[in-house]
């Protein structure tokens, strides 16, 4: 007599838990990259389940662009507090202030996260960095390994990836190298939402429909913030919107939506005609190979 077969979400959950435990067993200083967005919140939830009833045996790292939504930072701090986790924050502003980074002309700080991330990895001697990347997000990511080696410069070389066989992960690395680990590689956006619903996972409020003053730029609804506001003939309008991803406020667009509950969000995702990155992330639209280039440089 066998136990009931796993459904898709159970199979994905078991795979992710297996990955968390492998890394905990084989690496000295893992860390979860945490933005407060839905994918990294899901990662933390899975990590908690992997080690329960013991606490998660590694900290979180937030590379903070400073272009935040206050709701997300409040959510981040309350989650860390509630779970008794340790949070490291690398402020992009510190790198700009001491001259290691220069603000871009367009004010966007997403591409500036790579340097603080790599510096933090060196400073804390992290050897395994968990990220919420999924293979369905983008074509370059479709070829990413679950455990992916980065050289001492944090670079990804797609032609030197190790073959990943069965569920035997090879995380061997030289001093100074580290691995990126993607426990939810095989999840789709819809899997993430359905699992959030099944597990009743709390998310920042900006994922649900709310009223916000936004302006139109490059086909996206952007909010006013420390990164700037409307220019020229752009004007603020009060719209009913929600966010599909949490990123740098200067380049993460809101979508018009009346979805106030998880059921409504899922219905909207199912009916959507645009991928979440294509719809709302200007930085991914920069070039045909935008994501591949940024990954090679050490971005997540």
């Amino acid at each position, binding site marked *: *007599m*066998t*136990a*009931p*077969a*796993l*459904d*898709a*979400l*159970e*199979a*994905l*959950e*078991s*795979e992710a*838990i*297996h990955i968390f*435990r*492998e890394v*905990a*067993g084989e690496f000295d200083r893992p860390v979860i990259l945490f933005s407060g967005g839905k994918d990294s919140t899901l990662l933390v939830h899975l990590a*908690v*389940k*992997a*080690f*329960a*009833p*013991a*606490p998660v045996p590694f900290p979180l790292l937030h590379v903070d662009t400073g272009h935040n939504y206050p709701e997300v930072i409040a959510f981040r701090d309350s989650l860390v507090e509630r779970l008794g986790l340790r949070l490291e924050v690398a402020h992009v502003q510190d790198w700009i202030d001491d001259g290691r980074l220069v603000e871009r002309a367009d004010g966007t700080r997403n591409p500036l996260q790579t340097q603080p991330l790599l510096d933090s990895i060196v400073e804390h001697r992290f050897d395994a960095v968990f990220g919420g990347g999924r*293979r*369905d997000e983008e*074509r*370059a990511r*479709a*070829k990413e390994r679950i455990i992916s*080696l980065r050289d001492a410069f944090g670079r990804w070389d*797609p*032609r030197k*990836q*190790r*073959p*990943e*066989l*069965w*569920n*035997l992960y*090879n995380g*061997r690395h030289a001093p100074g190298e580290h691995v990126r680990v993607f426990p939810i*590689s*095989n999840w*789709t956006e819809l*899997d993430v939402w359905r699992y959030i619903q099944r597990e009743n996972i709390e998310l920042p409020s900006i994922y649900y429909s709310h009223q916000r003053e936004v302006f139109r730029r490059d086909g996206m609804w952007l909010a006013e913030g420390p990164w700037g506001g409307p220019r020229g003939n752009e004007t603020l309008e009060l719209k009913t919107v929600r966010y599909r991803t949490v990123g740098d406020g200067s380049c993460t667009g809101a979508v018009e939506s009346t979805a106030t509950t998880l059921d409504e969000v899922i219905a909207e995702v199912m009916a*959507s*005609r*645009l*991928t979440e990155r*294509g719809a709302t992330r200007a930085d991914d639209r920069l070039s*045909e*190979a935008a994501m*591949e280039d940024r990954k090679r440089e050490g971005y997540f």
Partner: protein
Amino acid sequence: MSRDLLRFATAGSVDDGKSTLVGRLLYDTKSVLADQIEAVQRASVDKGLSTPDLSLLVDGLRAEREQGITIDVAYRYFSTPVREFVLADTPGHVQYTRNTVTGASTAELAVLLVDARHGVVEQTRRHAAVLALLRVPRLVLAINKIDLVDYDEAVLQAIAKDFAGLARSLGFADDAVLTIPVSALVGDNVVERSERTPWYDGPTLLGHLESVPVTGPEVDAPFRMPVQYVIRPRTEELHDYRGYAGQVAAGTVRPGDQIVVLPSGRRSTVASVETADGPLAAASAGRSVTVLLDDDIDISRGDVLAAVEGAPRVTDELDATLCWLAEKPLRPGARLLLKHGTRTTQAIVGAVTDRLDTDTFTLSTPEQLEINDIGRVTLRTADPLPVDDYADVRATGSFLLIDPPTGNTLAAGLVGSPLVLVDLPGETAHTPGP
């Protein structure tokens, strides 16, 4: 109603239209979203093409787009109301062994493509041999481009018969193989049933993918679980809690089961099978759990919990089949690292006894194994390992060989000789193995 998850792989040689088939599956199941289609249309126009090139949907890296080839295994996702699919899309020509082995290692089914105009070619034989070696439970032969042979039933019958002989000689049972005539370009029998193949009464490709069992033979095997991590909360209320965390690799575990801890051989009884959501009455292959035992015995990462009946054998001498994946050749006497389950140990290669010619399915005695070679070796390990033959239990019969100085993965290892070549009447006799 909850949907289950099928992991499958596709393999085919260059120009069989595999990218188009994958594109068709994604497109017809409405898994391609508007911005992705627009991106492909833009890129197709940039390349001076008059119609959208669906293969652009699936070629991810810049070098691949520039050279018009696929380099690496890519993972695709689509779903229907009854099932979710994880597709390992394995390219045909560049390093076909490495890519096919990778894709096949996690697949419960493989779709092998041939061009209806060319039938079973060398590459088909090679791919089928690798899929047989890796013990992929089910095969689909998709005969593509049937529109280019005028939907001629006789052509299809000839290819199907040819392939059935090949599959049988590689040890596939007849009911594990299905042949489907398709046109990825036009869409015949991929998702929609074709009216141009009235002589074909089987399922469409998607219909078949939706109905095959998602679980492999692991579920019916005896219980095995490599211990990944020991969970010890060390809090006041959980002072004595000691949980062995792992993913059930084969069989089923229940409270009250007698188990043996390997390699030590100590026995105990399962007290409970825990998850973060509470205890389970039983957990089968694939589920991540935390096992609590009645006795306080010394168990750590690398140990294997197994059913007392039909336990793995514990050995430091292995006869194994290797798929050699590295540029650097393997020679007898090599000192390597071997990762089996959750244990990594040192290994010395004894003899390299056989090399499989995947074109003729004959064996030769090689001096060394080179990249993409499949061969048999003997290995001695520094620590005893609890192993099964790969043919019996894939999870405890598989291992990696790792290069100590670089950490690179050199080989996929399979305990024993999982590829059994069957002599067919009327054909030249084969030497059995590897």
